[in-house]
């Protein structure tokens, strides 16, 4: 690929010297055609690999189920207004309420409120729909940033070794020696209530697992002879780290990150249930279960069941997909 790149550059430079001549242009086109065919050739094995992965995934029942569920959730999260229109001019993430005395008690599922209501006509259906968007964006942000931080730290620790490794890994060990939820609770309690505070608290802890994971695989990838070859040919350290080592060591992180999408939502819901995450009245599933739980004995089951089912579906979807991905991406398990 590299050679094709340079020859392409060469013809271009020759063109600029004789811009009016027709012949070089056709030569340029030929060079371009050669370049694309070489590119296709170079990508062919990778594409074949991806197709094979996809084929394996489609054969696994669990990951197919996971993908279908995730696509459905993503549609709801991207277009929630199609399923439940928010009242104009209000924050759509706050469930609309009606303080009319006839709505004081929760109402059972009906045509107007498909999943019933909480007190003051707060529609459970509305909350479940908009909660998908809250959970999805929250999980994506935490997992992407957390995994990114972990990748970089783990890469530096594993590749550079020595004092850098020592410092990063001792810090990681400290964070890993406290069970995740408890550390998050502690930080949340200090930062106060709210989704932003919860996000910061989760980010402050979430990188540590990825760091350890990526460091482990970097340590083994580092010993490969193609890394020596790259170094011998004068490739810069940073380029070796990000172009040669990283792409070969992030497979376990992909599986972990997929499953963590669900775990993050579980933690968020748990924090909200404790009164630390989303504020009251928000379309967030944990706080909805929390408000519903006041009616435990009154028989208003829908206030608890539906938001909880939403959490379960979301988390299960990502766990199913992660489970399938692990089988596909782990070379020992396949073929």
């Amino acid at each position: 690929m590299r050679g094709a790149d340079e020859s392409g550059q060469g013809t271009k430079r020759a063109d600029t010297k004789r811009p009016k001549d027709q012949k070089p242009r056709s030569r340029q086109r030929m060079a371009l055609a050669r370049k694309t065919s070489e590119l296709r050739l170079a990508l062919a094995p990778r594409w074949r690999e991806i197709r094979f992965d996809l084929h394996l995934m489609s054969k696994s029942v669990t990951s197919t189920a996971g993908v279908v569920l995730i696509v459905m959730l993503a549609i709801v999260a991207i277009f929630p207004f199609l399923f439940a229109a928010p009242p104009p001019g209000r924050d759509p993430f706050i469930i609309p309420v009606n303080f009319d005395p006839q709505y004081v008690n929760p109402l059972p599922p009906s045509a107007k409120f498909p999943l019933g209501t909480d007190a003051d006509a707060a529609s459970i259906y509305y909350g479940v729909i908009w909660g998908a968007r809250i959970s999805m964006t929250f999980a994506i942000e935490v997992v992407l940033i957390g995994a990114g931080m972990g990748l970089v730290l783990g890469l530096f620790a594993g590749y550079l070794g020595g004092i850098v490794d020592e410092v990063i890994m001792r810090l990681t060990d400290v964070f890993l020696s406290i069970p995740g939820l408890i550390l998050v609770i502690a930080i949340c309690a200090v930062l106060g209530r709210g989704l932003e505070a919860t996000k910061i608290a989760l980010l402050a802890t979430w990188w540590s697992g990825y760091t350890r994971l990526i460091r482990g695989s970097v340590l083994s990838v580092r010993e490969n002879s193609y890394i020596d070859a790259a170094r011998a040919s004068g490739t810069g350290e940073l380029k070796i780290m990000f172009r040669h080592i990283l792409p070969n060591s992030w497979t376990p992180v992909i599986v972990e990150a997929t499953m963590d999408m669900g775990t993050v939502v579980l933690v968020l819901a748990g924090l909200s249930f404790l009164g630390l995450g989303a504020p009251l009245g928000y379309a967030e599933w944990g706080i909805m279960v929390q408000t519903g739980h006041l009616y435990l004995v009154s028989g208003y089951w829908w206030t608890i069941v539906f938001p909880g089912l939403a959490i379960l579906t979301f988390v299960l979807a990502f766990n199913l997909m992660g489970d399938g991905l692990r089988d596909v991406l782990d070379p020992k398990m396949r073929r």
Partner: protein
Amino acid sequence: MLIGVSILTFFIIRLAGNPAFQYLPAHPNPQQIEGVIKQYHLDEPVYVQYFYWANGVLHGDLGWSKTAKMSVSDAIGQKFPATFELALLSTAIAVAIGIFMGTRAAVHANSAEDQGARLVALVGVSLPVFWLGLILLMVFYAGLHVLPSPDGQASLHFDPSTLRVHTHFLLIDTLLSGNVPYFVDVVAHLILPSITLAFASTAIIIRMMRSSMLEVLGSEYVRTARSKGLPESVVIRKHARRNALIPTTTVIGLTFGGLLSGAVLTETVFSWGGLGQWAGDAAQNLDTAGIMGFTLLTAIVYVLANLVVDVVYAFLDPRVRLG
């Protein structure tokens, strides 16, 4: 490692703002503020304050918990048995079910039973703990009226001070005191919380047991045992399962830490009155001393659990030698 945890927790406390307000009345006068600052060495540099704090911690002084209305170390001492009883019982449940189902799944790999176990494991890690607790309560307490309401370890009309034995573990206390109705009541209160808490660990143990069992079943000594003509049940029980238990033990130790975080939510749902509920209350009421005490305690328990696992490991696997 514990030093690192202590520095981290101290750092988080200090993020919370001026700690002097923990010890002051709602509307303090300047002299009171001055006094508290002097008394707790708050006018010195932060790292010096850390050493004062660490010194206190080593002498059992973790500060005052305003939610428990007692000192943090007293609160931990008083609430620990309740949580320990719950955690121990749910670990027992998780280990029993997890090992049984994991073994079955591996022996009948790719059968309907295996897929079922896989689904149970996946749902287990996906269930919100607090929701599971609420659903169980809704069915067995509000719906069927077979189990008691979530009012802690026992019904309110029983008074623990009437018991003759005091280990603070209610199961043991009631049994040794011969108070049968009380004992039955305690057991009835334990059922739902321990099932709730056990669910997630069960799922993890099933997975681990299945994969290590599959690995062992493919090994040569299992083939040898089979070719000797041993009955399949003996091969599985004596040769395969025993060896598959070794990696599973590690996981059991690690789930113990997860159990403590699950305890925060489970105990809150069931008003259990143990460490978890206290931590939840403390978190809601900005009781930083309480939260930090709990965080530090969990870290210690976690490290201890890992230590126990290492020792058990050496016992199970003679190839591992300690020291």
